[in-house]
């Protein structure tokens, strides 16, 4: 279990999500693929946090502080914020899908072209 393997798994998850976003026609399926992409990014962030050395712990000239230890948590903080924003984004996106469905009686992504041209 090395950082490279973790990044491959994260990249695979992101790529599968990208394929879904591009290839799916149903808006809800596109949102599901978007969630896969979020998770790919988060696996990479947590993997970096787990396997790489924070600069603050390598430079020991001024002594080690609790803040330096917390810098090993940067990926975790990234994940906390991304998960929160993704949850808000999903709720808002599904509200938009409902509004769109009520207006157009459709959830096909190609039907959302009223503002085209």
């Amino acid at each position, binding site marked *: *279990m090395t*950082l490279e*393997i973790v*990044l*491959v*798994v*994260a*990249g*695979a*998850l*992101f*790529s*599968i999500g990208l*394929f*879904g976003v*591009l*290839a*799916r026609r149903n808006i*809800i399926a596109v949102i*599901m*693929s978007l*969630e*896969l992409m979020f*998770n790919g990014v*988060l*696996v990479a962030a*947590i*993997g970096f*946090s*787990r*396997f*790489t050395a924070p600069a603050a*712990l*390598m430079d*020991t000239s001024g*002594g*080690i*502080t*609790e*803040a*330096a*230890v*917390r810098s090993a*948590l940067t990926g975790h*903080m990234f*994940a*906390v914020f991304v998960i*929160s924003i993704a949850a*808000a984004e*999903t*709720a*808002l996106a*599904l*509200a938009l*899908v*409902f509004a769109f*469905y*009520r207006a157009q009686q459709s*959830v096909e992504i*190609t039907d959302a072209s009223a503002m085209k041209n």
Partner: protein
Amino acid sequence: MSGAFDSGPIATLAFFLASALTIVSAIIVVTQRDLVRAVVALAMSFVGVAAIYFIFNAEFIGVVQLLVYVGAISILIAFAVMFIGDLANAGTLSQNRMISAVAGVLLLASVIFVAYNTEWTSIEEVTDADAVAGLAGTYEVSGTSGENNLISAVDGDAEGARGGALVDSSSHIGPALISDFILPFETLGLLLIAALLGALLVIRNRQEDDAA
């Protein structure tokens, strides 16, 4: 001292099992024609990702993943799928699926190329006794430097030790949120309120509201 999971063979095996669950479920999500089955596969994929977080000593993020993604977002999407009954050709892929597949494969190839051609630092390169003790949680506060507490190893014979993953990450997340990340944290609260109100505003039925 190390956490429940370190880089032993059991952790590696668990990581590969969780990764396989995640990737296979993700492939089902993007190819399954029945959207209800796709939602179930999505929840399975989220569970696999949560397992990966637990293996990486990220217990707090793993629990949040289970609560928010498996518990809330999957249910929200399942509700949307069942509420919008128009599923006649829900699972069809668009005509540019080949281009999409090529884009995905190219992206994965570039990620693999970069991952294996970069010199990453390793947490095991941390050799300072106090830093290793900080990661392992076997330290005591020995003074202050500016606004921060200086720490030192409890038992001074950790010389020559090698760093491992941060143990007990959960107890560090709270202090980090209210010290280093206080501004983003408060902004996040504002964003959640705005998203809540925005979702309600977007979904409200104007005719029914005006008639009432």
